[in-house]
């Protein structure tokens, strides 16, 4: 056991820090959706030109092929430099792209991977449906095969960045006679295809982060199918091997910064008694201490999972523990922020605004829902880590 970085790692950290310092955008990320898209793509392009695109992607596909330690360093420095959220590039870089690397044919790879890395295309997911949330394999959006095309009809929901995306990784049912997890196909969808209607959904945070996507006989070339027809479930699962506990790293460092900011705020914001500062209140002080400790534990846990995953071919389901803990720490932080704010907690501040704590409070509600609810994470831990009966 050690927490030492090799001279190469330290040199790497210097290099990352210097590059980020000189290149992180100075202007705030726009709120308006199309401007946000352009901002995110421009930032991705900048990273590509600097040689920092696709940090976890293999070098042969244009990625940086960083070791896990280097990824940890990158994410730490990234958050410390206050670099923008990966935003609209998330699905392409962390989900769609890695799936293509694992399962797509050469033509599909050659066309799409460079676009993702260069910041030329935004991807979104097309998995969840109104009737298929936690029970993803229950999806009903279906496709008939007509000549060399899939004809898709149905509806997807909770699709982040669909309103500004170019491509979608879509799961559709192509055979209703097979079992639930069979008969599903994974396909690339060009979102300009006729018959696709995208309607943004306004959230409790007052933004339109995600959308509903409707398909009315949208015709998708069969050439867009990744892997085999009816084998989409295994294609969708293939990215699990890509995720080695690194997904939460920058958000976790960002979380630790927020805890420090909140402690600072509590030192200068009047507390519940109106006379002393919030941090002088015993209950608030204890909660601040606890959430500071929890963030430290989250960090140690991430390093532990990364250390373990570095030694195995296929990472285990322990990533669910990080997701579950991350969600609970994030919600704890947001609740403590409301205690610190007191009456000011009624003044809504959007996430993007300085001190956007109330926006953050509303946003934190989604932490235990999106990307697999905390209940589903607990099922996964119970059944796949602990071996409890289903």
């Amino acid at each position, binding site marked *: *056991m*050690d*927490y*030492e*970085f090799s001279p190469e*790692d330290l040199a790497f950290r210097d290099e990352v820090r210097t590059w980020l310092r000189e290149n992180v955008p100075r202007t705030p990320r726009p709120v308006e959706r199309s401007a946000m898209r352009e901002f995110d793509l421009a930032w991705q392009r900048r990273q590509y030109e600097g040689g920092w695109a696709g940090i976890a992607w293999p070098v042969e596909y244009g990625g940086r092929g960083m070791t896990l*330690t280097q990824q*940890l360093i990158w994410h*730490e*420095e990234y958050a*410390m430099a206050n670099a923008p959220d990966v935003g609209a590039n998330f699905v392409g870089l962390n989900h769609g792209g890695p799936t293509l690397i694992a399962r797509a044919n050469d033509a599909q790879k050659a066309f799409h991977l460079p676009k993702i890395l260069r910041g030329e295309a935004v991807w979104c997911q097309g998995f969840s449906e109104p009737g298929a949330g936690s029970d993803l394999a229950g999806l009903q959006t279906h496709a008939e095969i007509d000549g060399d095309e899939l004809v898709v009809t149905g509806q997807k929901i909770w699709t982040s960045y669909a309103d500004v995306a170019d491509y979608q990784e879509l799961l559709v049912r192509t055979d209703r006679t097979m079992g639930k997890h069979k008969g599903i196909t994974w396909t690339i969808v060009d979102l300009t295809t006729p018959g696709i209607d995208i309607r943004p959904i306004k959230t409790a945070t007052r933004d339109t982060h995600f959308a509903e996507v409707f398909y009315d006989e949208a015709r998708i070339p069969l050439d867009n199918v990744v892997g085999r027809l009816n084998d989409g479930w295994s294609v969708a699962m293939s990215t699990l091997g890509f995720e080695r506990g690194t997904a939460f790293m920058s958000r976790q*460092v960002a979380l*630790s910064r927020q805890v*420090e900011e909140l*402690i600072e705020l509590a030192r200068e914001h009047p507390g519940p008694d109106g006379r002393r500062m919030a*941090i002088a209140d015993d209950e608030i*002080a*204890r909660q*601040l*201490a*606890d959430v*500071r*400790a*929890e*963030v*430290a*534990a*989250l*960090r*140690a*846990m991430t*390093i*532990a999972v990364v*250390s*373990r995953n*570095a*030694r195995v071919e296929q990472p285990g389901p*322990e990533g669910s*523990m990080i997701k*579950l*803990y991350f969600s609970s720490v994030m919600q704890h932080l947001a609740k403590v922020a409301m205690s610190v704010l007191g009456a000011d907690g009624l003044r809504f501040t959007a996430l993007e605004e300085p001190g956007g704590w109330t926006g953050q409070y509303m946003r934190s509600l989604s932490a235990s829902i999106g990307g697999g609810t905390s*209940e589903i*994470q*607990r*099922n996964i*831990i*119970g*059944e796949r*880590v*602990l*071996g*409890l*009966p*289903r």
Partner: protein
Amino acid sequence: MDLVPSDEQSGMVDSVEQFLSKELSVRQLRDRLQADLPVPASAWAKAGEIGLFSLGLAADAGGADAPFVEEVLVFQPMGRHLAPVGFLGSAVATRLADVAGMTETRDAIGAGTVGVAVGLATRGATVGARVDGTFDVFDLPSAEWVLLLSPETGALALLPAGELTDRRPVSCLDPSTHMTEVAVGGLAPRALVDGWEQPAYQLGALLTTAMLVGIAEAVHDAGVQYAKERVQFGRPIGVNQAIKHMCADMAVRCEATRSLLAFAALAVRDGRGDAAFQVAAAKRLATDAAIENSRANVQIHGGMGYTWEHDAHLYLSRAHLLDRLFGDVHAQQAAILRTAPAVP
């Protein structure tokens, strides 16, 4: 950068696990409890023989030169098996004796030929060049030395047990530990260190945390096992999400605190600037993990878990005892705000 124990470290943990299963199992603890016997001298000696109390000392001081990191690894099974609280005292006392140049005492404690009790200052008691006031002392009947500690100041003092004459046995919440209320009037310690950030105090906090993590793990294992075995309505109770999710939360608490403990031990060993913060954070969360997991284990076991015969309550009450040592939850929370994590 690696938080996974090496093969050598895992081997060390396995051998301690074997020793405890053979010599100091919870079953044997039950027998001692029944007969109201103190920790046997042979147990101290065997623990000393395998190096449990001298692991962190330098090689020329009779140790294995494996401070903090290996020490927390071997103290986790100690928590798991409800090993005597006095063992904590021995492991910390060897360091104190070493610093004070008391080589004979150091070697005797390290070899386990003498035992060490742990005494906690109660309100108003002081630990310094003079020791005064009332102390709650654990495992005193089998000890030749006493390690007194003041969580208020972080002071640690080593005294011969024979000098503590004003003793009153107390029935302890933790039935597996002998507790004695001791009144001290102006005794001079043989060795003294002062301050939370002293390595000896940090070691004490780390080893206590390790025992708490061991408890959290032991009751997690017991609860999960029972959830698989116990059948109601024709199915194991673990199929129910109410039980399954309780088990998942226990597992997350284990994972989080075990990782943070390892991280904190590395921080202390390497002398990192935020070591005191990491230790305080680890002890704070490990206390919660041990107590909450122990309570969940009782709940999963239902009526059985509430009986004297079942071990579930032993773990819970030991967790409460360990909370008091080297700074309780409130003290740790204050320490967490007094210090700060380092930026990466």
